[in-house]
């Protein structure tokens, strides 16, 4: 029958030259004239083999990838990022024992316009399904949901849609439980504001607006890897400085340098007081998000590899021995010797 023949021919991957009758189905009174059909049956004349994926296409689809500011060698070694925003999440994911591959990148590559972002591993069942990047603000939730899911079903979250409903329920119900005592403390938000405003302001000023540091840190780490064109470099550095400046001017009509540094010192003092003699903040056994946030700044300020020319912030920080200890113990304990940095052996890289 004509209909059957038609159905079969459609299933074939390549159009064949065999004469099938009457391909047009619905209006029976209209059929394609034979000569035209013969002509079109010849196409495609030739099918080329599939192209290779481009060089820069994502490689580590089977792994979670965290895109951060880091050098290429740093990415291979799993070394801490030199950007506090990236380092915070890098450290947090290491603390939580998530497997991931750091990838050196810059803000232009991010869908949100800012690093870091996370590209979860694509599911093993259908590897071609697109995974959505997760911006830094959602990483915490993602980690939490992943944890809940692995605990509950014993499988990674992206396997099987049937787990999805359970998983949503579970994430809601365990939200309070899994956030532990760290974030339930009323001081959590207050001390977090010290990091997010006081220390960050001083850091922004000291890094971007103080010319010696800009030349010794920003140029080699942020600007030069992005482009080799001198004009673009000039423009980029100008943009960076302007961005830092607007950010600071949002909070007051002028940038009061003395006050910024003084506030930052006071913030370190308060944080040091909060930490006390504990190993980690809020007396936790293992470091959490707050530790990651503090470490992000303290490590960048104390890192020997970063060439701070104007060292006022570092000197201010070095007065608080327990903060320095805290930074040291995290570097040694969690970023230790191997690429993934997840072993707790106390060896230096």
């Amino acid at each position, binding site marked *: 029958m004509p209909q059957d023949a038609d159905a079969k021919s459609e299933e074939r991957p390549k159009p064949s030259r065999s004469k099938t009758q009457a391909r047009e189905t619905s209006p029976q009174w209209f059929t394609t004239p034979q000569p035209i059909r013969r002509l079109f049956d010849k196409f495609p004349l030739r099918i080329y083999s599939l192209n290779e994926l481009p060089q820069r296409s994502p490689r580590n689809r089977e792994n979670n990838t965290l895109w951060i500011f880091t050098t290429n060698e740093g990415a291979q070694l799993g070394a801490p990022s030199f*950007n*506090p*925003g*990236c380092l915070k*999440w890098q450290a947090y994911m290491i603390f939580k024992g998530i497997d991931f591959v750091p990838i050196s990148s*810059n*803000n*232009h590559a991010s869908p*949100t*316009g*800012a*690093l870091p972002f996370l590209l979860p591993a694509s599911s093993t069942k259908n590897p071609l399904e697109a995974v*959505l*990047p997760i*911006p*830094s*603000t*959602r990483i915490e939730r993602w980690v939490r949901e992943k944890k809940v899911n692995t605990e509950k079903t014993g499988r990674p979250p992206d396997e099987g849609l049937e787990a999805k409903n359970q998983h949503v329920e579970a994430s809601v119900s365990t939200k309070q439980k899994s956030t532990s005592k760290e974030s339930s403390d*009323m*001081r*959590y*938000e*207050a*001390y*977090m*504001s*010290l990091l997010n*405003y*006081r220390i*960050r302001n001083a850091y922004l000023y000291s890094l*971007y*607006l103080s010319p010696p540091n800009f030349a010794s840190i920003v140029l080699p780490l*942020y600007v030069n890897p*992005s482009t080799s064109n001198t004009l673009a470099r000039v423009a*980029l550095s100008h*943009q*960076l*400085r*302007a*961005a*830092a400046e*607007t*950010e600071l*001017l*949002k909070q*007051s*009509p*002028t*940038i*009061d*340098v*003395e*006050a910024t540094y*003084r*506030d930052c010192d006071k*913030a370190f*003092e*308060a944080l040091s*007081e*909060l930490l006390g003699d504990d190993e980690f903040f809020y007396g936790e056994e293992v470091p959490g998000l707050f530790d990651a946030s503090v470490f992000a700044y303290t490590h960048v300020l104390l890192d020997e590899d970063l060439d701070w020319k104007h060292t006022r912030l570092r000197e201010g920080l070095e007065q608080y021995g327990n903060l320095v200890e805290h930074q040291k113990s995290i570097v040694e304990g969690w970023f230790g010797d191997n690429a993934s940095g997840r072993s707790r052996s106390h060896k230096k890289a």
Partner: protein
Amino acid sequence: MVLELHIWGPAFSLPSIDPQCLTAIAYLAQALPRDQWVLVASSDATLSPTKELPVLHDGSATIGGFENIVDYLRKRSDGDWDIDRQFSKPKDRADVTAFSSFLTFQAHPLLDLSLYVASENYSKTRTAYSSILQWPTQYFVPPQRRTIAKARTEHMGLSSLDLDTLDEERRSSRKAADLIPQSLRTSRPTVTGLMKEKQSSARFKLDALVDAAFKPLEQLLGKKKWMLSDERASSLDCVALGYLSLAFIPEMPLSWLAEGLRGRYPDLCKYVEDGVKEVFGGKVTVEDALLSSTGEQSAMIQGENESGLPWRAPEQNLSSAGASILNSTFDSVPFYKRTIVTTSSTQPQHSTDAPPHSLTSTLLPPLLASAGAVAAIASYLLYSSLSTQEPEKRNLSDMGEAGAMFAGLDFGEPNKEVRVPPAEGRVPVGVEVDIEGVGERRGL
């Protein structure tokens, strides 16, 4: 030498319209003996080296900004005028630092939204300003401060409180509506309808913001009289009074902020009411602060009797008005760089800022006053032409109302996200954007 504290003038029955000034007043009222300082409602930001009020004049020294003033007073008096010295426990001091910064950065955007960004409320704020500013400046200062407030709260995606944006949206939706045939058109939404819709969706987010800002404070306060102890106030209490009183006391058409406080944080409300009575000496009227410049002596006496604060009437001079107009003109001229980096003098007695300041106020003013008038017109034209363009930009940036709204529900989480522009959203990011990226985001 009597210290002079210059502030933005009184409004809403509070001694000042600005939270930082209220904070400074509260601090001085408790730290200094009454005869050692006077309060001047000069409402002129050009007096300050940091271009913001409050500013403290001590002979030749000029100190701008609350934190700087506290620092200066401590050094000048060898700690006698430091009201935090009673808290000898380092833990308490750490709490003062942390919660002060928390309040400053969490509550300030809320006040910005409530007093400046929300159009209905802004008209009331503007009226309050016009009674404390002298003649020409009242046309420049409120819009200027509103622009700053808008910039500061832009990232929260709550510009729907601003009717100008709404109007812009309506205009663009009308354009689209013209393409739809008559028979298929739905009735055009009215302004009030749209406003209600927008405001109710904004309400979720606002409530989340209010909770994020005040919950930790209420927990810290507990049942104590002051934040840290029952006996004495700390500088944290000054900051808390400054921000909370301005959130709680003004009666605004859109009263989500005061309502939120009243409904969910009764302890904080009681704290504010008591604090205002005790520290500011009850209600303050504009007349208390701005008595005719001729009767300075009587003003002082009267001020002392009626309110608890040592008011002194500000000097009326056209030159400072001229200077402030000129300043605001410069601010709106493209390519003109403001003094970006100032190092405030925190050392008592030798101020590096004094010479340039006195230069501006003594030499230039006669010129400035006349030049100011001309420049003012130019700046106004420029300002209005610029401001018509702005809303469109905002519309684009806060697309995805629903996404932003739901993201707003999450403010219970560490809220570094509150600060930053919702990344020019191609991904459903909502408002939760990490802080750290920002500096780099703009640039890179």
